[in-house]
């Protein structure tokens, strides 16, 4: 594996499979245990460097590191030039001086973790950068699919929503393609990037046309502010054309699952009855996120202890 996890493209099939297998082993090792803790990363320091608020992702990484017995530092920072705070580079050098073994970085600017990786010795894990990528989200999604359906190769995954601005979609396309899934992206044309023709996916503007052939439907969060920039006319129209409701869910194959990275806009991209249905993996995704992040930290840091 590479030293950093900046993009899902950093993982080849062997790496990705190893992470998923390791997550499964961790789950098995901890199952039924009262003290959910492994001594693997004792003495190692993991820094959560969050330039953008995301309580759920931060807590997931924090818990993952603590369950591996690492020391965890939470470092909430503000974007550099914008707020005239400390620059990303200065922050990097500070963390470097503290001896961070891994830096988990969340940032509103695409590519910020890539910059960070140039300035530090430790491993950088991208926990979401702007509209670019969120590789551990893709890993936990893949893990969830594999647990539910038993495989990834040949699985038909339909990802629906704001692909243009979605780091979840970018990482999932890269990772699921590596793992052999067949991907279909569904969105209004305004929310698909120019240049998508080079992606290893099918593209459709019509959700109803693809649902019957989907083993997995992954709904993306759609932000209200996109409406103001005329990406679509209204929340109501978006919901009608691209939202997943009970009627549409009924069209899915029998074993198909419904995923959402959260936080959800219930009633917008996903109806409450769908989110709470047996097909929904939304709660599992959260717990699987913990296992997958433990696996990533273990594999990036565990191998070469000081």
């Amino acid at each position: 594996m590479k030293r950093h996890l900046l993009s899902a493209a950093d993982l080849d099939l062997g790496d990705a499979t190893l992470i998923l297998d390791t997550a499964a082993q961790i789950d098995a090792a901890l199952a039924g245990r009262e003290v959910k803790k492994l001594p693997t990363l004792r003495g190692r320091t993991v820094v959560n460097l969050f330039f953008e608020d995301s309580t759920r992702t931060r807590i997931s990484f924090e818990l993952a590191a603590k369950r591996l017995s690492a020391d965890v530092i939470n470092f909430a920072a503000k974007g550099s030039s914008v707020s005239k705070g400390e620059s990303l580079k200065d922050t990097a050098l500070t963390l470097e001086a503290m001896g961070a073994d891994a830096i988990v970085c969340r940032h509103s600017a695409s590519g910020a973790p890539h910059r960070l990786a140039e300035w530090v010795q430790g491993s950088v894990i991208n926990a979401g950068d702007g509209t670019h990528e969120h590789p551990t989200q893709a890993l936990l999604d893949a893990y969830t699919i594999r647990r539910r359906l038993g495989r990834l190769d040949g699985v038909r995954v339909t990802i629906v929503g704001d692909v243009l601005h979605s780091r979840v979609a970018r990482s999932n396309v890269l990772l699921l393609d590596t793992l052999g899934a067949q991907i279909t992206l569904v969105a209004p044309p305004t929310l698909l990037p120019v240049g998508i023709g080079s992606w290893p996916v099918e593209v459709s503007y019509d959700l109803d046309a693809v649902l019957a052939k989907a083993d997995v439907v992954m709904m993306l969060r759609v932000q209200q502010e996109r409406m103001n920039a005329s990406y679509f006319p209204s929340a109501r129209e978006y919901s009608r054309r691209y939202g997943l409701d009970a009627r549409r869910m009924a069209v899915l194959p029998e074993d198909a699952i419904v995923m959402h990275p959260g936080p959800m806009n219930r009633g917008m991209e996903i109806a409450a009855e769908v989110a709470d249905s047996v097909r929904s993996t939304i709660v599992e995704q959260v717990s699987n996120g913990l296992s997958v992040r433990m696996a990533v930290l273990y594999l990036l840091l565990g191998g070469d202890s000081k």
Partner: protein
Amino acid sequence: MTSLWLIRGVRPYGEDPVDLLLRDGAIAEVGVGLVAKDAEVLDAGGLIALPGLVDLHTHLREPGREDAETVQTGSRAAALGGFTAVHAMANTDPVADTAGVVEQVWRLGREAGLVDVAPVGAVTVGLAGTQLAELGAMADSPARVRVFSDDGFCVADPALMRRALEYVKAFDGVIAQHAEEPRLTQGAQMHEGVLSARLGLAGWPSVAEEAIIARDVLLAAHVGSRLHVCHVSTRGSVDIVARAKADGVAVTCEVTPHHLLLTDEYVTGYDPLFKVNPPLRTADDVDALRAGLADGTIDAIATDHAPHAMEDKECEWAMARPGMLGLEQALSVAVEAMIETGLLDWRGLADRMSVRPARIGQLDGHGQPLEVGRPANLVLVDPDVRRVVSSADLASRARNTPYAQRELPARVVATFLRGRPTVLDGKAQR
């Protein structure tokens, strides 16, 4: 103090070797085996002489951002790059939108004494795009402004652009448009295409440039004005300008060295050294720009030399300022992109880097042929050396070159401004 220089064995435009005698600011004699008592002699065997280069698009940053560049340091970078004249863009602080500011910049240029600094005046007050600046006052000032630009911003309002194009006819000025439809580039970070989709960076579509150029050539034709388009960067822009020229529209345009050499592939590492506006485009655009420069659709290479302080580049891509240094490497990049590819010969390169930009900027003393009686503004180039660019060695105060560690051909050995050396043996004389 008189000046008398005898340049021996130099090849004007890469042609047969001759001697040039420079006396009192002019080329006094051209011939073989010239002798001149008391002349300082420069043995220029193997070197090529070109008329001093003229840059239509330089950001000198003074007044306001002297931490990034000053007229002095920028002039030195220009002289080292073989330039004898540069046009200093108006987006300073305060903005060069009054006679007072353009005169200040012009005077600072005279004091530096390394190149002729021709200030560009802002088209609109404060570059705000709402009200015409006092263009006539800037034209009438000692700075003799003839080129007006809101560079960095597009004069997007079509009615205002029309008025500006019309108004400057009174003193034979030209509007140099930074063509960027602002509504199509809100938050834009890089060329919109395959790579922006992958990198998750907001796209700067080619059409945002092309739509403004198309509009502006139509406006220029309608009111019978001259239009200059800054830094064209797309195949479509070249096509539009070619068609307008064929239709007889008085339009000229420029291309930067970096758009002739670099592509959006360089954005992949998110290093803001490669962030520039307009953005680096695709290899297909680079091909079209080179072809357009070769066939004359594109009139000039202009550097868009844009110094930035370290902290404005050592940061996240989205927070970095756009722009890259250009003066010191422009000629080398042009040699690689145009001479080594056989697209232009040295005469052609002199035309695009000196003759035509001087004409567009109406700098009478520059861009003249290397003939007896002409002003002795010239550059001597060693075409045979190749050098690795080191950002530590730049004369610019800033360090944001996209060419660091890159090997480039050719080297400026000497530059003469009105018969006096501003650069000798590759070193600035002040």
